């Protein structure tokens, strides 16, 4: 299930020869993604370790995890929207069992980079963290 979603995104991204075109596409995703209601932009939902602000909000619906996200950077918003689309509406165990290194195939250098300036690495951690928290049954 997750693998298929990842595969589809890889296919989409591989259409672009040039990095900049790929990122133009990601910017578009970011521009078109819905904005978070201001009252949800709480510090507790911030992804720690990002220079740009990223909010990731989990919700358990029928035993499945759902996420809403936003960012003050439109690129990061595009990236987090992609991530959310990968992990959206899944059972907690599916998220926890998924090997994040699979995502390296997306070839978004931001995802594997350990710099703290970009947040995708931390977003992934936050998604996992939510899954763990819910698994323990908050």
């Amino acid at each position, binding site marked *: 299930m997750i693998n298929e979603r990842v595969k589809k995104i890889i296919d989409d991204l591989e259409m672009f020869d040039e990095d900049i075109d790929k990122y133009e596409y990601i910017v578009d995703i970011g*521009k078109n993604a819905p904005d978070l209601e201001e009252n949800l932009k709480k510090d507790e939902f911030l992804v720690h370790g990002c220079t740009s602000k990223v909010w990731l909000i989990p919700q358990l619906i029928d035993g499945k995890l759902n996420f809403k996200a936003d960012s*003050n950077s439109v690129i990061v918003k595009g990236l987090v929207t992609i991530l959310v689309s990968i992990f959206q509406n899944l059972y907690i165990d599916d998220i926890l069992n998924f090997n994040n290194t699979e995502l390296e195939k997306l070839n978004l250098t931001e995802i594997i980079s350990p710099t703290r*300036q970009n947040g995708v690495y931390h977003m992934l951690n936050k998604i996992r963290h939510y899954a763990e928290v819910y698994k323990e049954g908050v």
Partner: protein
Amino acid sequence: MIKDDFPYFSNSKITYLDNGATTQKPQRVIDSVVKYYSEYCANTHRGSYKDGNLATLNYEDTRDFVRSFINANSSREIIFTKGVTEGINMVASSFVKENFKTVIISSLEHHSNIVPWHNLGYKKGNGLEVVRFNNNLEFDLSHFEELLKKNPGAFVSVTHVSNVFGIVHPIKKITELTHKYGGKVLIDGAQSLSRINIDVKEIDADFFVFSSHKSYGPTGVGVLYIKESNIKSFKLYQTGGAVIDRVTYDDSTFLDSPLCFEAGTQNIAGVIGFKSALEYIKSISYEVIQKHEKYLLELLHKGLGEIDDVLLYTHSNLVGGNLSFNIKDITPIDLGLLLDKQGVAVRAGHHCAMPIMEELGIDGTVRVSLGIYNDKEDIENFLAKLKRAVSILKD
């Protein structure tokens, strides 16, 4: 072409404009490092054999070169460190702590010149004073003098050149005023050594610090200049091998400066390579560097002037080769990323200078930081790629 001296530019197509973070290295610097490692690698100040002597000689040769490069009186005043950050931390804990009630900094300091003071308990309203700036971000000398009057015998620690905005501080006046009110001064030369001729005697600084890696030299090396008259009251920082005269289990007695301040095996290859970097700067000359930088800055300003909604934060003439800007309604990070995806390396973010960002009410800026090798094509390329990035990001 200067780029030919730097192997990076034959290996990479990147337009490198992040020189404030670190610079590329000329071949001769790399060669010095390699030569040490592959021809006479030995520890210094220890073994009395051929390669050990040669390594020591070359290590001390860098010290002497640095001394004359910044016009210090004696090589006793030149201490090798890991970089500016270690230099400031050393001065903070070995000289300032417990001896100074007040530390005065400028508004444009790098975190390296803020956090160590916090960490020792100097906080705003409680021992830490921050000099105001005018609306061109220039240092406010009269506010500074007010602070000095209010806090006689203060320790003043200011950057020479702002890493974010390029503002050049009037350090000669700053040391003059500080001394007039009985204080001591440290100048952070992280961003100036690569651009401005440093004469510590003329500046009359008590301490002057810089990092090799920001001035075309190896990583992991820096210099702390301590004016001779301050050495006596400078406490030992790290101790260990090579700083001591005599050790028993009961106690230790110490060597003189500079050796007593360089405990343990130093970054020998790095120190030796640093001399080549300074020689390189000398061979180009500060005059040429400054003229060229000024020319590129003009091109940059002109180009940015042709882009809509560009926000600059200073129109000061007192600038070195760092320029920060924003574009209205666009996050600087996004510009940085899209420039990167087009092969242009600039820095976007807070540049380790969060307080001034907060004061200006912004999250960060995009910074173009020039190096000795940047040329007209780099600026044109940057401007073209910036335009593309803006057109992608604007609705």
